[in-house]
C-alpha cells in the first residue's frame, strides 16, 4: 500500500546545542512563535521532473505548505505570510540575511532545497535561529517521490523536536470509522488518513458494521470490532496486505480491543451470559488469558506504556468508573472519584496520565487524570463526545463529537476533534464524511 520505508536520513552537520529559541509546550501557548517557512528551492530541471511524476507544478512550495500547515495546526507556531519575505528561497538556504527575517519579526526560519536525483526525491533543509543568527538543524534525506507529503511531515517533526525538546507527531496517520446514512441504519467503514487529513482511504466496503479500530504501536496492524455475519468479534487487520482474521475463538461477542505497548498482545472484553470480562490473547502463541473475573461489566482496557498495569472501565461500584490493576489482574483499585460517570480510559504514551470520557449532568467531557486518580482536569465540554486517543508524544488528544438531532431526526453529525493536553487549541479534524472512533498511529519514522 501507500507506505514505503524508504528514507535515508542523515545529518549534514551535527546538531549544536546552543541555548537558542525554545517553545514551552507545557502551558497553553497563547503567543505562538513567529516562524518563516521559506519555500524549498528547486532547480528548473528537478521542477520539471517532479511535475512529470507527481503532477505538481512546484513540489518545493507544496512541501513547504505542508510544513506551514502542520506548524499552524499545532497551535505553537505562527507561520508568517510569504508575501513579506524579502530573500529568495535559493539564496536564503545558503546564507540567510538575518536582518531581513528579523524585520518581519520571524524568530525561526526554515529553508531548504529539493532535487530530483536518480528517480528519487532528495531534500535538505535547515532551521535557523533568526535572533542569534545561528543554524539549529541541517538535515537531508532521500525517498521515493510519491512520499512527498511525508517529507513535509518529517521536516515538521524535526523542527518541532528541536524547538520544543519533544518528539513530534506529524508523520503519523489516523485510523477511524467513516460514517454515512441515517442514524437508524448508519453505514460504517474503516478509513485511514494522514494526520493532516490527506491520503484518505477506505479499508472496508460498509457491508458490515465496524467499530473502534486501534493501531498497533509497533507496526501497521490494526485491531477492530466487526459485525461480519452478524457475529460481533475482534479482528486483526494488516493494512499493508489487507489480510484479516478473527482474534481468538470465543463463543460470544468480543469487543473493545487494544494492543499491548509491545504490540504482541491484544487486550479486549469478552461478553458471555450478560457479563463482560477482560481477556488477552498473545498474537504469537495464540494463548488466551482471562484477566478479570467479576459479575460486573469490565471493558475498555488500556495498558500503561511499560505494560505493567491496565486501566479499564467497570461498573462494579454500581456505575461506570475507572480502575487500575496489575497486568495479571491483581490489585484492582478504583481511581475515579469525581461526580458523574467515567468511561474510555486510555493511558498516555508518556505514562503519567490517563485520558477519559466523563458524563456529568447531561454533558460529556474529555479529561485527564494522573494514574493514581489525582489531578483530574477536564479539557472540553460538549453535548456528546468520547473516545480520546493520544498523539504518540502524549501532547494532543483526538476524539469524536456528535451533535444533537431535532425531533425529526435531522441535524445529526459526528466529527473528529483534537485538543492539546493544556486544554487549548481545540480544532475540528476535517474528514470527507462523518467520522468517529479515531486512533492515532505511532511515528512512522523516528
Amino acid at each position, binding site marked *: 500500500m501507500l507506505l514505503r520505508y524508504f528514507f535515508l536520513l542523515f545529518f549534514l552537520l551535527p546538531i549544536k546545542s546552543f541555548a537558542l529559541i525554545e517553545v514551552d509546550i507545557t502551558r497553553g501557548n497563547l503567543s505562538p512563535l513567529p516562524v518563516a517557512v521559506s519555500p524549498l528551492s528547486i532547480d528548473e530541471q528537478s521542477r520539471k521532473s517532479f511535475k512529470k511524476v507527481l503532477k505538481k507544478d512546484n513540489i518545493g512550495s507544496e512541501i513547504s505548505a505542508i510544513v506551514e500547515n502542520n506548524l499552524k495546526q499545532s497551535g505553537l507556531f505562527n507561520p508568517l505570510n510569504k508575501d513579506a519575505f524579502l530573500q529568495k528561497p535559493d539564496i536564503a538556504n545558503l546564507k540567510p540575511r538575518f536582518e531581513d527575517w528579523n524585520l518581519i519579526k520571524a524568530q525561526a526560519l526554515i529553508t531548504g532545497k529539493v532535487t530530483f536525483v536518480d528517480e528519487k526525491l532528495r531534500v535538505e533543509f535547515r532551521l535557523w535561529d533568526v535572533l542569534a543568527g545561528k543554524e539549529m538543524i541541517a538535515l537531508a534525506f532521500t525517498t521515493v517521490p510519491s512520499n512527498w507529503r511525508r517529507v513535509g511531515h518529517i521536516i515538521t517533526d524535526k523542527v518541532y523536536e528541536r524547538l520544543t525538546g519533544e518528539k513530534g507527531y506529524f508523520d503519523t496517520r489516523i485510523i477511524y470509522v467513516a460514517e454515512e446514512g441515517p442514524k*437508524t441504519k448508519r453505514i460504517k467503514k474503516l478509513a485511514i488518513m494522514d494526520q493532516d487529513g490527506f491520503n484518505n482511504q477506505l479499508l472496508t466496503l460498509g457491508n458490515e458494521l465496524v467499530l473502534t479500530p486501534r493501531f498497533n504501536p509497533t507496526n501497521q496492524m490494526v485491531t477492530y470490532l466487526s459485525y461480519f455475519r452478524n457475529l460481533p468479534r475482534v479482528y486483526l487487520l494488516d493494512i499493508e496486505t489487507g489480510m484479516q482474521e478473527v482474534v481468538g475463538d470465543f463463543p460470544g461477542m468480543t469487543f473493545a480491543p487494544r494492543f499491548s505497548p509491545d504490540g504482541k498482545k491484544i487486550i479486549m472484553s469478552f461478553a458471555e451470559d450478560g457479563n463482560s470480562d477482560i481477556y488477552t490473547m498473545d498474537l504469537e502463541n495464540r494463548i488466551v488469558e482471562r484477566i478479570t473475573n467479576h459479575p460486573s461489566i469490565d471493558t475498555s482496557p488500556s495498558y500503561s506504556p511499560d505494560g505493567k498495569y491496565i486501566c479499564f472501565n467497570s461498573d462494579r461500584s454500581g456505575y461506570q468508573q475507572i480502575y487500575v490493576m496489575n497486568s495479571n489482574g491483581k490489585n484492582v483499585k478504583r481511581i475515579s472519584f469525581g461526580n458523574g460517570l467515567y468511561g474510555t480510559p486510555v493511558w498516555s504514551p508518556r505514562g503519567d496520565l490517563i485520558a477519559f470520557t466523563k458524563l456529568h449532568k447531561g454533558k460529556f467531557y474529555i479529561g485527564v487524570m494522573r494514574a493514581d486518580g489525582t489531578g483530574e482536569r477536564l479539557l472540553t465540554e460538549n453535548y456528546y463526545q468520547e473516545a480520546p486517543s493520544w498523539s504518540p508524544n502524549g501532547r494532543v488528544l483526538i476524539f469524536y463529537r456528535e451533535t444533537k438531532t431535532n425531533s425529526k431526526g435531522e441535524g445529526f453529525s459526528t466529527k473528529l476533534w483534537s485538543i492539546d493536553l493544556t486544554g487549548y487549541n481545540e480544532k475540528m479534524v476535517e474528514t470527507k464524511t462523518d467520522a468517529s472512533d479515531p486512533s492515532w498511529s505511532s511515528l512512522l519514522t523516528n
Partner: protein
Amino acid sequence: MNLSRILKNGFLVVLASVFLTACATQKVGTKTQGDVYTGSDSVEYLASGVKDRVFFATNETVLTTASRETLRKQAGWLRKNSKINVVLEGHADERGTREYNLAIGERRANAAKDYLMTYGISSNRISVLSYGKERPVDSGSSPLAWSKNRRSVTVKAN
C-alpha cells in the same frame, strides 16, 4: 398484608394511571414510566398480542413488571411454535460510551433470555446479539427517543 394496605396501594395505582393518561394525551399517545418507555411506538408483534420488545431504564438492565409480562407471552408463543428460534437484540441509548453500551446491550438481551428460559424455552433456541447504541429506532435526541432505544427486541431467526 392487611386489607387497608392493599386498598391504599390500589388507590395509588389508580392515581398513577390517571396521571399517566393525562400525560399520554399531551404527548400524542407515547409515554414513559420512571424513564422506561411504556408506549407502543416502534413496537411490533411476533403474533397477535405478543409484543416483540421490552424497554429499560437508563443504565439499567432489570426487567420491569410490564417487560416480564411481554416476555411471558413471548415464551408462550415460543412454546407453541417450537420450530422457531429467536435472536434477542440488545440496545442502548446514545448517551453512553460506545464500548460500555455494547456490554450493557448484551446484558439487557441476556436479562430477556434468562427470563424466557425460566419459562421453559431452551437456551439453544435463543441467541443474543448486542448492538450497543449502533441501531436506534428513534434518531431523536430527547429523553423519549432514548427511552425507545433502550430495548431488547426478540427477532425470529428462521
